[in-house]
Structure formats: structure tokens, C-alpha cells
């Protein structure tokens, strides 16, 4: 397994060439992705063109940027100009992005090579990538299991070495949970650190773009490139990247929230995390038991807020502006009924989970129910944030499992929405409170990986990455 820095050194010494590497990756994907289903679209032409530019830069520039020539994959809800962007939905099956997302613009400027767009749950709604309107993605580590979701295609692409890194989006755990299921690193930055301009919106107060990588160091390199204030996203925060000097675990207090180790957690997961904690203790880490008392309400609060925002954000898919439309086939019949066009288009081209969330959100916002559901959820969201504020007065960082279970089997949960929702139980709180959080692999049970989550205080992304680097090192050594 190579790291971004190793690639970079080899490119610089001309031991390998960006064009050759890109072609090799494209060949590999074409040969092997049939069994995995990580990609929806391959952007071959664009990739070769970018690789040629990168190759030229290595010849002409003394120190090209670190991501120059590095092959990557992009979740199919992030716009890449001229490339199809489906968001995993039939309604955008034919939609071609007319501009680059800010994160993509930054990657391109660095010289990264975009190989293609990865599979996902429709509009990022799901935890297994089985809700993709096109096909499910399989877990490369064990093909009868799901890769997690919704960035399952991105996680599978990194785990199968179809690319060096991938971008995903995380609204309630959609980067961290698939990273955990595929045995890789996934990082959700602080809300506002990475521009959402050009990310197809799901729940705007929770969505955040972040990297899926093979190592924490790679995640840091990619994050440094994509973060930053953007005039096209008014919620971005100005916080210049400051590499946190290497941390010594012995100087940190790590919090263990008791609410994350109770009912519902699979025995193997609990034991793996406890084993990791012991190893870290041996290496000088200090742990402290803490309490985040409103944890058990995080998931229902998340479902109400997310669905409410979804119901508004997805109103734009009306069969008129862009994407597929019932007018394609029944133009004449519907000509005189505007609402019929919209409701028939949405009925035909939106999937079940998407409909469910639009309905739930609209209900939670409707007259007579607004106070009881949406407003109450927002108040509890504040209490959840206050829990974290209090905790971070006592500890520097919080450690939890990423997912309560090992990767589950394809088809095992798809018919039970509540069971599927529970897959996000440890990840949604960081979105509700806007905090940076990272998942890294901590153990394998037979072939199946267990992920460990680190949550940091608001805007302490660099600290999360530095602590994660230390933990990664210790867990690898032993």
C-alpha cells in the first residue's frame, strides 16, 4: 500500500509516471469493479488529460503540489464540470454538471486526477449504498457484506485500491460509517471548514464534504487542500490550516462517553474498542469517563431535522428545470396540468427512502406539528451541543466506536428503515453539533473491520488529525 507522499516521491524521481499510473488504475477498475460496483461513471478522458498535465508539471516545476498526479474518486453528489452527476438517483440519471464544486476546483488546481464518480445511496439517504437507484456496492473485504453508506462507493473504491483517495459527504455519518465498514480512514471536518458549493444538498445544516483515505496522513493532506473560506458558501468559516505539532498522548485527556458503550453494541465491536483503549493506556494515554446525557435522543432529533431540510432541498426536482421528467414520455397528456407534471415526475423517478424522508420532513414542518416535532428537535439539538461543550471543558478529545455493529450482510436491513437508521447511532451527534470527527480502523474480526471514532471540539480539526495519527501508529505497532 502506497501513501500520497510515496507516490509524490516516485513521481518526482520519475520512477513512475502520472499517465501510466492513471491508465493502470483505469484498467484495474474496468477489470475488477464489476464485482464491487464502486463506480457509477468513469471519467477516462478527463483523467488522462489531467494526468498529462500533471506529468508536464513534474517536468517543468521544481515542487509541484502534493496531490499532483494522484488518482482519486469523487462521490456522485459532488459536481465535476462536464461529467454526469446522478446523486445515485434516477431523477438525475442524465444530468451533466455545468460547473465544478469548490472542493473539485481546489483538487484540480493541485493537479489531482479524477478517475470517476462513485456509487451512493440515493441523495445520500442510507447507510449501506443499497438505496442507490442503479446497483448496490459490495464490500471489497467481504463481498456478501455492505460497504456502509451513503459514501459506500467512495469507501469501497479506496479499500479495493481503485484510487488513492476519495471524496465523500457526511450528513449523519456517511463518510465515517462506510470508512469503518471498509477498514479505511474517513474524516468529517467541522461544519463550515469545507465549502458545500457544488455539493448536491441533502440537509444543509448538517452536510459536510470530507476525505476517505488509506492513512490519517493522507486524510490530512487532502483536507488541507479542500478546506477554506469560500465566497460561494456563506457558511464557510475562515480558519487557516495550522498543522498541529505532533501530540504526545500522555499529555491529553481522552473522554469515553458512557452512553456509547451500552445496549445495542455488538460484542465484538465493544471488545475491539476496549482492547484498543488498553493499548493506548499502555502507551501513556489518559482516559476519563464522561457523560453525554442527551445521546439517546440524537438519532430521532437527527431524523426530524434532516428530513425537514430534505423536504425543502428536494423540492427542486420537479421535472422541469433539470433531470428526468414525466414530460419525456407523456408530454401531450400533461400539457395542461402543472402539478400533475411535478407529482408524476417525482412519483416515478424518486426512490422509496427519498419519498419517505420528504413525507416525514413535510409532516414535521406542517401546521400543527411544527412545534411538536421540528422546533422541539432544534431545542434538543442545542442540548446535545451543550453536552459536548461541557465535555470538552474536561477532556481534549472523545473516543467512541464508529458503528455499533460489524458490516452487515447485503439485504439484511433494507426492508426495515428503523434498523437501517440505527447504523448511524454513534455518528449523528457530531453532525448535529457541527464537530470534526474521524474514523480509523482499529481491528479486524476475521475479515471484517472495526472502526474507532475520534470526535474533537469545534474547529479543532487539526487536533483530531494529529491525535488520530498517534493512535494509528500505536495500533499498527502492536
Amino acid at each position: 500500500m502506497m501513501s500520497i507522499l510515496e507516490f509524490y516521491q516516485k513521481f518526482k524521481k520519475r520512477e513512475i509516471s502520472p499517465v501510466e499510473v492513471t491508465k493502470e488504475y483505469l484498467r484495474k477498475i474496468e477489470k475488477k469493479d464489476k464485482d464491487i460496483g464502486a463506480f457509477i461513471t468513469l471519467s477516462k478522458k478527463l483523467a488522462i488529460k489531467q494526468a498529462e498535465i500533471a506529468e508536464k508539471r513534474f517536468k517543468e516545476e521544481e515542487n509541484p503540489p502534493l496531490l499532483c498526479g494522484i488518482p482519486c474518486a469523487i462521490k456522485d453528489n459532488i459536481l465535476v464540470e462536464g461529467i454526469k452527476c446522478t446523486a445515485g438517483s434516477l431523477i438525475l440519471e442524465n444530468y451533466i454538471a455545468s460547473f465544478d464544486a469548490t472542493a473539485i476546483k481546489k483538487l484540480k488546481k493541485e493537479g489531482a486526477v479524477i478517475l470517476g464518480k462513485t456509487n451512493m445511496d440515493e441523495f445520500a439517504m442510507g447507510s449501506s449504498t443499497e438505496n442507490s437507484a442503479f446497483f448496490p456496492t459490495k464490500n471489497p473485504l467481504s463481498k456478501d457484506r455492505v460497504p456502509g453508506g451513503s459514501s459506500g462507493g467512495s469507501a469501497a473504491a479506496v479499500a479495493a485500491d481503485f484510487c488513492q483517495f476519495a471524496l465523500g459527504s457526511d450528513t449523519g455519518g456517511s463518510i465515517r460509517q462506510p470508512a469503518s465498514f471498509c477498514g479505511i480512514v474517513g474524516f468529517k471536518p467541522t461544519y463550515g471548514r469545507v465549502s458545500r458549493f457544488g455539493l448536491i444538498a441533502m440537509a444543509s445544516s448538517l452536510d459536510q464534504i470530507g476525505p476517505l483515505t488509506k492513512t490519517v496522513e493522507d486524510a490530512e493532506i487532502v483536507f488541507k487542500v479542500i478546506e477554506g473560506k469560500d465566497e460561494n458558501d456563506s457558511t464557510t468559516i475562515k480558519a487557516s490550516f495550522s498543522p498541529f505539532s505532533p501530540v504526545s498522548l500522555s499529555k491529553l485527556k481522552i473522554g469515553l462517553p458512557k452512553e456509547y458503550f451500552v445496549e445495542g453494541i455488538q460484542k465484538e465491536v465493544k471488545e475491539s474498542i476496549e482492547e484498543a483503549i488498553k493499548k493506548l493506556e499502555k502507551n501513556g494515554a489518559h482516559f476519563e469517563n464522561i457523560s453525554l446525557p442527551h445521546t439517546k435522543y440524537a438519532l430521532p432529533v437527527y431524523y426530524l431535522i434532516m428530513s425537514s431540510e430534505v423536504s425543502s432541498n428536494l423540492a427542486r426536482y420537479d421535472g422541469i428545470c433539470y433531470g428526468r421528467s414525466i414530460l419525456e414520455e407523456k408530454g401531450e397528456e400533461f400539457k395542461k396540468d402543472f402539478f400533475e407534471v411535478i407529482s408524476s415526475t417525482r412519483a416515478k423517478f424518486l426512490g422509496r427512502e427519498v419519498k419517505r424522508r420528504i413525507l416525514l420532513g413535510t409532516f414535521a414542518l406542517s401546521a400543527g406539528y411544527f412545534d411538536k416535532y421540528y422546533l422541539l428537535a432544534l431545542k434538543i439539538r442545542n442540548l446535545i451541543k451543550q453536552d459536548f461543550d461541557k465535555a470538552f471543558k474536561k477532556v481534549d478529545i472523545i473516543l467512541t466506536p464508529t458503528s455499533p455493529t460489524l458490516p452487515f450482510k447485503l439485504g439484511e436491513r433494507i426492508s426495515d428503515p428503523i434498523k437501517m437508521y440505527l447504523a448511524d447511532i454513534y455518528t449523528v451527534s457530531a453532525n448535529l453539533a457541527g464537530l470534526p470527527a474521524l474514523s480509523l480502523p482499529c481491528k479486524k474480526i476475521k475479515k471484517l473491520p472495526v472502526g474507532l471514532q475520534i470526535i474533537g471540539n469545534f474547529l479543532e480539526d487539526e487536533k483530531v488529525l494529529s491525535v488520530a495519527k498517534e493512535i494509528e501508529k500505536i495500533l499498527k505497532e502492536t
Partner: protein
Amino acid sequence: MFDIDHISRLVKIKLSQKEKKELEKEFSLILKFVEKIKEVKIKKDVKPLRHIAPLKNVLREDEPKEFKKRKLLFPKEKKKEDFFKTKPVF
């Protein structure tokens, strides 16, 4: 109460009878799940948290600027000169 006909009219999604039946069943479970939040005792001074970013609204100077990148807004196939072309819907 959750009235599926009313809500489906609001969201403009046509539902078949079969879909309505299934969704109604699913919703009774989902609502039971989210209603857990009613247990929480909320003190009067707890404000709703709509957004996490510690930002205030910033207005730019009120100077007219011409928007020239119309191609950004329109999918290629629907752009006609400077207009947006769609099939008739009325």
C-alpha cells in the same frame, strides 16, 4: 394525525394505493421512533439551534454586478440563447 393523502398532496408526489398502505405502516413505526424526543424536559431558556456556524449575516456592498456566467445555471441542453427552454407545462 399523519394523513398520507394530505401530506402527499403537499409534497407533490403521487402515491399508489399500495404505496400509501405500506408507507402508512412504516410511518407509524417511524413516528413512534421519533416521538421519543417528547420525554425530554426542556427548560424555558433553551433556544432552538438552527445552525451551528458562529456566523452573523454579512451583506456585501450594494453595487450592481453583471452576472455573466449563465452557463453555470442552465444544463447545456436546456439553454437557448440566454433563456431556459423547457417543454410546455401549462
